[in-house]
């Protein structure tokens, strides 16, 4: 393990989040080290999505803070977002643009210079060969999701935050995604995800967090 990778760590300290006037959770604390996957579980409305959005810095907690490499993510700002990849309920791809265009824009915004050939390869690997230059609105729900997931292959982010990544995917795509996550974690990355399915992970540590038990 490289020395800089050892400092990769996500910490949550005394986190309290409210949605509207309702308290979702309070006093939440956890530490996630490099090469770990955190599986967040809980009923609907228990605050899984809010927790994930708080980890990304989209949602400001009512108390407590999230730390990355020992520093508060509020202070890190753009520096933290460089290490972060968030995958939410919405795919975040434009229906009028092709898969290639979508991924190229996403890469530019991440500050990466990705060769077009790599994007073609990524789309092919995720099972979209032949669909690369169609406007994504012509694709099926699952195919759109695959386009979005192709970002995982192109991104160099250390921390993946995935909200229900397995829904609307067929068996092949699920196993492909599992492979991607396993590879990311094995390579010293961190992953936080929510899913109703069990995630069999062959390598690396799997931590579990139950919300609103």
């Amino acid at each position, binding site marked *: 393990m490289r020395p800089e990778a050892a400092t990769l760590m996500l910490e949550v300290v005394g986190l309290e989040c409210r949605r509207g006037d309702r308290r979702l959770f309070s006093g939440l604390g956890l530490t996630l080290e490099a090469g770990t996957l955190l599986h967040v579980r809980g009923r609907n409305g228990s605050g899984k999505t809010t927790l994930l*959005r708080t980890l*990304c*810095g*989209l*949602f*400001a907690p009512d108390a407590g803070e999230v730390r990355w490499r020992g520093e508060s993510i509020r202070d890190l700002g*753009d*520096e933290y*977002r*460089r290490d*972060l990849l*968030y995958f*939410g*309920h*919405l*795919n*975040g*791809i*434009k*229906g*009028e*643009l092709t898969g290639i*265009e979508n991924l190229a*824009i*996403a890469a*530019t*915004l*991440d*500050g990466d210079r990705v060769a077009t050939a790599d994007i073609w390869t990524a789309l092919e690997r995720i099972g979209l060969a032949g669909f690369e230059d169609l*406007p994504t609105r012509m694709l099926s729900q699952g195919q759109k999701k695959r386009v979005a997931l192709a970002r995982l292959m192109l991104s160099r982010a250390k921390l993946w935050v995935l909200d229900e990544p397995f829904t609307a995917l067929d068996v092949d795509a699920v196993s492909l995604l599992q492979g991607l996550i396993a590879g990311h974690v094995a390579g010293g990355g961190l992953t936080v995800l929510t899913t109703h399915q069990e995630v069999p992970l062959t390598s690396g540590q799997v931590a579990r967090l139950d919300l609103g038990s």
Partner: protein
Amino acid sequence: MARVFWCILIRDLTLAMRRRTDVLTTLFFFVIVVSLFPLGVGTERKILEILGPGVVWVAALLASMLALERLFAADYEDGTLEQMLLTAQPLSLLVLAKISAHWILTGLPLVLIAPLVGMQYHLTGTAIWVMMLALLLGTPILSLIGAIGAALTLGLRGGGILLSLLILPLYIPVLVYGAGAVEVSRIDLMDVQPYLMLLGAFFLIALILAPLASSAALRISLE
């Protein structure tokens, strides 16, 4: 920095080109409003000459207002806006790129069509030139200030009406000096300069402050 700015700008222009009707509706709204006025107030040449500058500016205000609703809405619905908030780029830069694209699509056409509507109101050649210049300086301000309102009302029911309630009062300075410039140009062309300089100053201030306020508003709205 510049690479990201161009990336978003070209992205938004490409998107608009693949959905062309959206651009044209704003333009035609502007033309229709301006054309309806003489039917309401009478077609007498003297009245139209006096009303012309004000009518054109009020119509421009309303047209840019209508278009604002869609500034962030599409990106909000498909989640791309959320992804923009999570990139390592300064959000205000991305917002500025989006506002620029929006202005090119909805503000610039108004400037270009101004001579046509100016003739409907019997404006002289110089007055039309002044009007184009004033619109060129003024319409970006409308887009910039309006972006704050668009970000605040993102995804709300009846957001369009609310947006006009919030933003139209803030458009008053642009309306006063934009219409004022055309007004005085009919008497003495030399008097126009302070008006245009004021509009220019407003534009620069809005250019600095509005993207910051809009990105703050976006972070609030996407929480």
